[in-house]
């Protein structure tokens, strides 16, 4: 392998926030909530085995609050972690409740501490590994490999990577093929307006809008498009003063009535 690793700098080092300072607000260079937690845990300056999860939860919640104050866009993962840590914190502070369903707050805290230790261990292991990177840097292979003339065995210079890459490329090629856009199979608004118009002037009582849906609905998607189109058509016709619309509660049924007739109720 000629691809070697630079011992001295890693490409995203520059993106890493500086370790100094008490609270890191810069989001760049972090990889998810666990990464932030590990960074915050280091600020406690104790071995991760002795980390205070309660304190860590506070640090994290404070960090999130600060990030939001600065209008940094936090991905959902960060907020979910905040919610979970708030929950864990409350459970750590409350008297223990006997429950066989859930692990105790202490167990949850221990699990989080374990996760942080494990991540830190792998991070250190990665660094130790890079320290050992030697082939082509400190240890060298034969510069002039020899091959011999007479042959009774043939081998091929092809690796699993070559094979996988060839397959991936083939499949990607297909993705890049012509995109066919199939004809729409939806109930259009024009159709809905036409249908609704045929009933106009003939709806003296408040009538549920769904009763005006077309009778032949093919599938779920088609049905949904019919509902949406009919509703939009109703709005359109109400704007033109042809009909009145009523809905008495959120998500309740929608009723329509011809405007010519003398309805008494309206929204």
């Amino acid at each position: 392998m000629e691809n070697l690793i630079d011992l001295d700098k890693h490409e995203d080092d520059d993106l890493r926030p500086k370790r100094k300072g008490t609270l890191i607000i810069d989001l760049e260079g972090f990889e998810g909530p666990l990464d932030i937690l590990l960074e915050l845990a280091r600020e406690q300056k104790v071995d991760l085995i002795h980390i205070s999860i309660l304190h860590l939860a506070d640090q994290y919640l404070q960090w999130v609050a600060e990030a939001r104050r600065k209008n940094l866009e936090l991905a959902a993962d960060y907020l979910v972690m905040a919610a979970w840590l708030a929950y864990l914190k409350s459970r750590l502070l409350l008297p223990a409740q006997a429950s066989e369903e859930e692990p105790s707050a202490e167990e949850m805290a221990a699990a989080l501490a374990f996760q942080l230790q494990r991540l830190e261990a792998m991070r250190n292991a990665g660094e130790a590994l890079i320290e050992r990177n030697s082939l082509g840097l400190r240890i060298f292979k034969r510069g002039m490999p020899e091959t011999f003339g007479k042959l009774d065995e043939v081998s091929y210079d092809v690796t699993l990577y070559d094979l996988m890459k060839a397959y991936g490329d083939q499949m990607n090629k297909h993705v890049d093929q012509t995109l066919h856009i199939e004809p729409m199979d939806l109930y259009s608004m024009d159709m809905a307006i036409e249908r609704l118009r045929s009933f106009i002037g003939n709806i003296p009582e408040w009538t549920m809008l769904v009763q005006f849906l077309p009778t032949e609905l093919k599938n779920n998607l088609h049905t949904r498009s019919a509902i949406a189109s009919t509703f939009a058509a109703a709005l359109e016709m109400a704007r033109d003063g042809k009909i009145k619309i009523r809905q008495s509660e959120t998500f309740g049924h929608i009723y329509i009535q011809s405007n010519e007739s003398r309805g008494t109720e309206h929204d």
Partner: protein
Amino acid sequence: MTDHPVEHLRLLEAVLFASKEPLGEKKLSNYFNEDVDVKALLKTLQEDYQNRGVQLVQRGNAWAFRTAEDLAEKLSEHRANVKTLSRAAIETLAICAYHQPVTRAEIEEIRGVSLSKGTLDVLFEAGWLKPRGRRRTPGRPMTWGTTIEFLDQFGLEKIDDLPGIEELKTAGLLDARPAINAYTVRGEMELPFDHPDQPESEDDFIEEPLDENG
């Protein structure tokens, strides 16, 4: 066509010297009759070269001649181009090395983030990772491990020589299972929790299904 051990050593030496890449013991044994103890020959040859500027090194079950590490500084003009690995790639490589065989879900579990496209790619292209079979759990996820080339690149005889691996094992930190399921990489709340304190056989535990588009 003598069977004299010195002739065996000479042939073994020539075969290994001619090759750039480590050669497996199985392949090396093709050069000898069945009754020849190739492993013993390799050990002898290794000793012969022990104090020389070129040494015979073991990489898994493969062997190669390499320059002695203490001469590194004086050989600096042979240094090849250096390619920089991202922090994510280094961490992923370490996880694959220390936790192998390991699934993608486990790598993500340990790092706490989804594997982004291209992280495994670069390690694969370098020839450092290989498939290690599928786990017999629902979804039959692929597992990954490291190659001879990986050992060669980092100057390791075997996986057990990874820096600090014994300590990590003892500390129980080489357990790739989810520590807790309260939150996942996807950020979904999931109760109840798996209990982390009951290690099961490596092959038996059930992977958390991850959204494949991660």
